[in-house]
């Protein structure tokens, strides 16, 4: 089983995200051969004009969605940590949707069973949303790398501010 430290998921940098929904179009096209944000595994949220961010599955350690499923329809990939939906077992009851803190698992409008980011496991070049994002706001990262990036950013800012005050 891949450890939480090694698990890579699609992360969005809100400073870069402009809310253009290209990730949604790319996802629904890749997965469903249709342009339809309602069928995208990644979803854009615009809280107000300057707060934009795309949200996809975080591949949690001990995922709440799996724990909530009364039919054992959800499992976690040993290889990547992605959530796997057993289409035969899922009946679309929605307990997992309620359990997910990020709104990352959703009910499919047609199949009526849940669906979630699978990191484009069938694509050799990985998640297509990342390939398409024109702002380079999306990355496939581990939480450790995210923390590194945040630290570097914070320190850079501190030094810039210190420099500016001089």
């Amino acid at each position, binding site marked *: 089983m891949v450890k939480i430290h090694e698990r890579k998921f699609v992360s969005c940098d809100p400073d870069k995200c402009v809310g*253009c929904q*290209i990730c949604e179009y790319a996802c629904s096209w890749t997965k469903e*051969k249709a*342009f339809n944000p309602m069928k995208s595994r990644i979803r854009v949220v615009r809280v107000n*004009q*300057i707060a934009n961010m795309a949200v996809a599955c975080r591949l949690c350690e001990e995922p709440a969605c799996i724990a909530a499923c009364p039919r054992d329809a959800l499992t976690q990939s040993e290889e990547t940590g992605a959530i796997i939906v057993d289409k035969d077992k899922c009946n679309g009851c929605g307990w997992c949707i309620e359990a997910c803190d990020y709104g990352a698992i959703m009910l499919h409008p047609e199949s009526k069973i849940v669906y979630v980011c699978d990191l484009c496991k069938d694509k050799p070049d990985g998640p297509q949303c990342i390939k398409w994002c*024109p702002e380079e706001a999306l990355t496939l990262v581990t939480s450790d790398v995210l923390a590194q990036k945040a630290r570097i950013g914070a320190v850079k800012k501190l030094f810039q501010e210190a420099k500016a005050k001089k």
Partner: protein
Amino acid sequence: MYGYAGRVLRVDLTTGKTRVEQLNTEIAKKYVGGIGLGMKLWLDNSQAGVDPFSPDNPLILTLGPISGTMFPTAGNGHAFVSKSPATFGIGEAVAHGTFGAEMKRAGYDAVILTGKSEKPVYLWIDDDSVQLLDASHLMGKSPAETEDAIKDELGDYYIRVASIGLAGEKLSRIACIINEKTRAAGRTGMGAVMGSKNLKAIAVRGTRDIVPAKPDEFMDMVKEFHERMKGPATQKYRTLGTPENVLVHNALHCMPTRNYNNAHFENAEKVSGEVLNEKFVAKIIGCSSCAMRCEHEVIVPEGAYKGTMTRMEYETLWALGPYCGIDKLDAIIKGMELCNYYGMDAISAGVIVGFAMDCYEHGILSKADMGGVEANFGNAEALIQILEKMGKREGIGDVLAEGVRIAGQKIGKGAEKLAQHIKGLEVTGYDLRCLKTAALGFAVSFRGADHNRHGAYAFDVKGKVDRLKAEKGRGRMVRDMEDTYALIDSFIVCKFSRGTYYKEMPDMAKLYSLVTGFDMTPEELKKAGERINTIARVINVREGLGRKDDTLPWKVMNLPIPDDGPVKGAVVTQEELDLLLDDYYTARGWTLEGLPTTEKLKELGMDDALRIVEGKQEA
């Protein structure tokens, strides 16, 4: 069917009845979509001479064949078409965002709104379910507040809303229709037509799939255009944005200042795109499917207007700033926010304030007339106060909300000459006295004074022609740009992306063919652009407009540019205008009275329009 949804929704607001009809594919191919399709539908669903505020004046909402796809900027636009209460000719306005894509996914190419509701209502389109819901609790709310309230009460936060503010409710002739808080179908008073129907908002949720006819080739083209959008063709929009024009226009002395009293603003440095970006821009965001993003969101960080957040572009900055002699960016931003709050076209609103200030300085309007406002040029507080009065239609604001043409007539005492408009639509930020290709484009624009019908200013500003000269050949240039611009607004793609269509007609024809599956040649497409401009002219002819209306604002023809500099003394004379008009009509294959000829209409396959112009051509 690909590209087109194949369905037209009819809503009769008088009876509350709705009906879905099949889209006439032949008409769709001929008029493409967007404003082209909208104008055709308007013509076929209205009577000559209809009052813009009559229940019999249809308001038409259209999408384009590319709407809802992933093509960059193409997925997201929508257009409103109706008879304009400002020009009394054809009115149309396009907006982008996400509303258009959502409407397309709901499965419609057009919505024809007729009649008038007894009580305030909003239209709720939830895929196939169409309802008119009570809107009495939304009256008086801003478009942004209306959007939030509708999302709350319908319980779905991905619903897209286009709505009017108080200005639309009160039939202000400059009222616009706003979607997603900052995107406006701004010009020609479409919001007032919506208000006249007692229709507060259109809310939509669409969940259908959109699939292009030739998916693989289409995706290759999307990829190619994503790359092009990272290049020089869109750089301006991605960096400083359109406010870059402030210093460019000012240096060329082609920025109308203080209601066209000057062509150069001495304090332009204070309101430049550079300062705006440095001090106010908080974020640049993008519309649905856009790979370039342009929408500059500004926040006022300190002072009396601290916390004001809105979108800012050149035209609105110019109108609320230099055109009123105002050099305070925070007040200009506040003014923009107020225009969005009340739902007023900020270009027209700024030009009206500039007009009122000019009247005030000429003693035509007194301080008492202005409700105690000292309306001198440059008074930023006066700008805010006058905008408030216009939004609420209080005091002098009631007259001003009629637009400068009608306000000028009502005020009298020479105010008519201070009203800078064409066909009743207020001017935009290009001094036509020293941009003579643009002057022609503005004069013949079917929706009145506007840069967005032709973009002919580009020839002048970029130095491709002698901008001070009126000469033969400009007619063809304007004609070709008009055809392209009409197609852009019919597809609907974003005008800011126009530079990425390296091979204009071939690129656009390819896009149309890949999405719809209908083979379209560049020549046929060019003809469609011509047809769209021609039907606009046919409509205006039917509504009584003609050569006499293809004219220029009084100051453009009577007040030479006074500023020392490169264009001192520039003005457009009647002789020059006549030369330009003759050249344009000839290039179009129209009579010298500006009427499409029988041969031209037949050539374009517009035989159904013959009855409108025949008999008038010889007169």
